[in-house]
């Protein structure tokens, strides 16, 4: 078990934050904001509450920082908090998913071949998150972390506080639901096929 320089940096940085150094708090925020945002985005998709969620995640990070026992990397620990924030948001939102955000590029305009492909891809991603909206929060988070964020099953299990077996079951359910959604949505099906199929 090697101790990396980054790990030692984290330990010292956390200590400075706990000592009340605002500069250290800013440093921690800037070091980890990209990964927190990426984690939230991949689980939740484009989201008008993203700024609030980022803020909520970091506030929880700072409030809980004393509990970080340095047994895991700080990044993994922060990821866990970000995932928890996303999970709670999904649960709170319940069965009434918000309407998908509309962008200017949704307008129907003549497109070049490349432009049409990009438009199609954006549309497919929105449909993907539409399908995810119909999953349970636990299945959705597991699916997003595994399939979209690219984390191994064991890490997904760790981040979500579930067993590896439970995580595999959630992934299986999520895939089955996505298959069902793709069966009714040719755009989504074509896009998923391009990624190697739904299975």
């Amino acid at each position: 078990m090697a101790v990396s320089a980054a790990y030692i940096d984290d330990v010292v940085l956390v200590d400075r934050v706990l000592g009340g150094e605002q500069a250290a708090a800013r440093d921690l925020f800037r070091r980890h904001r990209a990964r927190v945002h990426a984690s939230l985005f991949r689980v939740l998709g484009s989201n008008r509450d993203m700024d609030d969620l980022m803020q909520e995640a970091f506030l929880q990070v700072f409030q809980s920082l004393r509990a970080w026992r340095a047994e895991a990397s700080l990044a993994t620990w922060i990821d866990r908090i970000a995932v928890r924030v996303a999970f709670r948001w999904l649960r709170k939102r319940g069965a009434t998913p918000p309407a998908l955000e509309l962008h200017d590029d949704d307008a129907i305009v003549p497109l070049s071949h490349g432009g049409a492909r990009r438009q199609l891809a954006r549309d497919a991603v929105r449909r993907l998150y539409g399908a995810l909206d119909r999953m349970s929060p636990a299945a959705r988070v597991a699916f997003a972390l595994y399939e979209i964020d690219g984390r191994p099953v064991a890490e997904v299990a760790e981040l979500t506080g579930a067993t590896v077996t439970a995580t595999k079951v959630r992934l299986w359910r999520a895939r089955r639901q996505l298959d069902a959604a793709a069966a009714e949505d040719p755009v989504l099906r074509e896009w998923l096929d391009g990624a190697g199929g739904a299975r």
Partner: protein
Amino acid sequence: MSEGRLRDRVPVEALDDERLSRIERGVISALPARPGARAPWRGAAPWLAAAVAAAVAAVALVGLWRRGDGGAPLAARPTTIVAGAAGATIDLGDAVIVAGGGATFSVARPDGGVDIALTRGKLELDVAPRRGRPPLVVHADDVAVVVVGTRFAVERGDEVAVTVTEGLVRVERGGTTDMVAAGQAWSQRARVAAGPAAPAAPAEGDVPVVATTAGDGAATGAEIDVDVLRDRAAAVPPAPTRDGGEGEARDRRGDARERRRDPAATDDRRPSGRQAGAAVELDPLAELAADLAAQPLAAAGAGASGELYGKALAEFRRGRAREAGRLLDAYRVRFPSGSEREAVAWLRVRIACAGGIADGCRKAANAYLGAHDDGGRRAGIARRITATR
């Protein structure tokens, strides 16, 4: 399906700088105020012009006054000082160092103690009683002179010589310890012998001195703020007492300058130069703190656990006790059976006791004894600490 199959197909929307700044402001402003926060060093080093400095002393900072990323008290880091031909006087508040011409030494203030490393030349020191604070230690070659409150001189030429004018110092070398009392001298060859007459006390006008020039008075451009080395508690002007005197407050703070100002005033617990060889009554807590500080810390071993312990040790030596403690916490979590367990426990004692022998110190000593009571010297010191309750 494999992990990350969709990763590249779901691009993460970028957050623009304005949004990020807004989020950052929201987070930082919501953080609770920390009254104990360490203020960033303001770095206002007073620069005395070469002409002024040359009138009192010629000392140059030759390095090591760098600001690290930790925001720790800078005085904890060693400051190397080269005295000019005329020598120099540095008032630390709780100690005055009079450096002979050409003396080269570094000063650090780890957790309230004073750590001086003499490379060459002669230093005369007037040290207020430590009263439970970490000791003042002068290192010269392989000799360590541990002080609990005294007036003495250390010279490093062909050999190291120690001359004690007041009080008592402990000289440690290669595992042997000699107590050198007022009026006695010690050298590497002769060990303790009858000492010469007391060196002259520093002149009143010498203090405080902030030296800024090199050897012959030529400005180096280096700046030194000796003020940050000063013991603030000891340097605060004494509060007037009802009878207008300041004796009680002065005695509490142990301000070395005050004692020098009034040569007739003697601390009743320290012998004067005229009491050479007399029995010396020392503050037992200060003596214990000195014993504690004199115990060497184990060097870092190899491997990941050794690396982490080594980092904690380095932070401690830089005077960043809290960072060191945090790294030791990390060590305990990551290497519960690490080969440095005993060294880690002892370093915890050192950290906990850095501010004096108090509850936290006793607790750490007790924890050390609970796991490492092997009857050795460290265990003995830990037992003495726990017995102070």
